[in-house]
């Protein structure tokens, strides 16, 4: 959904809408790939890093996202769980942007360059929010990506020029 939205100029003109969708996408990925056991290890690590070290987190990692988070924490620079999760989400966003870029260029899509940039920016900005939501056990806010009649699709609300 995030990639589809980024292909539309009207949605690209609404970075806040894209960011919300990126948060939803990242939280959804985490729901698939981060187990309750792994989340518990992250929280334990944050509350007592000397007691629950990086080794326990690495041992509990199975999926790609978990493994990336564990690698961030194991890097030995005092990374906490929120930073580790945010960094992994950013990289996941880069992976999606790269995949989308290749598909759109192959399809000769006119937004082949702009759309992946928007996806990457939205994931970069949404990564911290998504990380915080995951660690606090909250769901992503429900969003309706459909355009409403009162939406300012050209982003003129603040007087800026149309993109």
């Amino acid at each position, binding site marked *: 959904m995030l990639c589809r939205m980024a292909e539309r100029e009207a949605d690209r003109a609404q970075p806040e809408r894209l960011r919300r969708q990126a948060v939803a996408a990242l939280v959804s*990925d985490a*729901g*698939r*790939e*981060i*187990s*309750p056991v792994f989340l518990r290890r992250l929280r334990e690590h944050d509350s007592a890093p000397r007691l629950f070290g990086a080794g326990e987190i690495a041992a509990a990692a*199975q*999926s*790609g*996202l978990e493994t990336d988070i564990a*690698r961030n924490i*194991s*890097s030995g620079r005092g990374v906490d769980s929120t930073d580790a999760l945010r960094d992994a989400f950013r990289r*996941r966003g*880069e*992976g*999606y942007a*790269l*995949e989308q*870029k*290749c*598909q759109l*260029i*192959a*399809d000769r899509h006119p937004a*082949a*360059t702009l759309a992946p940039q928007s996806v990457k920016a939205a994931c970069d900005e949404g990564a911290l929010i998504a990380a915080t939501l995951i660690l606090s056990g909250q769901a992503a806010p429900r969003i309706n990506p459909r355009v409403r009649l009162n939406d300012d699709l050209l982003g003129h609300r603040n007087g800026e020029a149309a993109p």
Partner: protein
Amino acid sequence: MNALTPMRLLRVAEDAPSGADPVAVLGRDIRTASERIARYCVTQHEPIYEDLATLVESMAYLDRQAVRRRSNGWTRDLTIEVPVYELGQFVKPAIGQALVDAAWFLTGDRWRIDFVARKGRPPVRQGALALPPAPIKHVVPFSDGLDSFAQVQLSVREHGQDAVMLVRAGLGRDRAFPKLASLRVPRKFSGVRLRETTYRTRPLVFYTLAAVGAVVTQAEAVVIGENGQGAFGPACLPFADEWWFRSAHPGFVRRWAKFLGLALERSIRFEQPQLWKTKGEVLSVLQEAGLITGWEQTNSCATRPNDRHGRHGCGVCGGCLLRTVSAHAAGLSLPPGHNAFDVHALEDRVQAQDGQEKQMTPGERAVAVRAIAAMAEFARLADSPAGASAAGREARLVDWANPEVAQALLLRLLQQHRSEWDGFLSSLPSRSWVHEIVGQL
């Protein structure tokens, strides 16, 4: 895991029993002939060699058969039951742990491997023949590709041609190096449609057969010729939510060597002498040493032969593109008409051997764009914060205790790759179809 893709148990069996679980029958669905290694080397075939071949072929079979449901994420839950002669060996916790750890690192799947006693007659243990051991020093897994060609040439230069043995897997014909000790282990899957295309277990079979070859010949090492771009590039740049591609990553090779060492109860040494060089640098070394003859006969193309329009390679897959860029860096040129698509051309059209000119299909264009993007993005890592971060992460996988050396080597590799990629791009016509794609990346 909340929603990893569960799979039914695959039982590997010596005959076809009745039952609900999927069964792969040895000799029918999974065919290999590991005893050829021992026969070829005039030494005894040990049950453990047969067990290792059965194990890795079974894992490869399940990996190809079990389709990833990507909407559930990358990871699959793979359970397999494998019959082995040396059951006491394989049920040791340390061996099981090393196996599952290496398989997970390679494929990103959660493996559970249950071993059961194999009922059939084990390979006959004979006393070793009173022949002097072959003076083999290097066993090279040989894929018919450019990297393994280069490695064989360099190993022969170092130790002489009697000291190098090639191990090949599959059913192809052997054309290169007719004078060298060369062993082909035939293997074939049948019975079901093998639909999963990611096939990350490919190196398990290749490296394991080479390791068995090294043990029976008492060679010094299994030598993997993969260059640095192949070993690290795909690991640094995963697409979407894919698991890191690590078929020649030293982190995987080390894990697999550990498992094989435990199973075979002797240290198995794997070497990767070209790990910190680009393919272009390896080719340059070959050229300077006068060992380049025959390089153009090797095969780098990842597409099926039927999709190469009657040419040696397609020209646009990741393998073909890296080959072309590397040849340019080494001052070599591919023979005219070598590839179906010419990356130096203005248009992405192919001249088929029947004389017909065809436009690139959407599928071929998708492959080309991905290959070009992989090369360009890997080059961009050379001087970006993302590159420094990627180099740090990969370096810790190479050497956890002392990552600084590996990180410096990897950064140098990135810079060399960028230099070769930039040199290649500047050799293209400014309005070429490749430039048009690069301009959008």
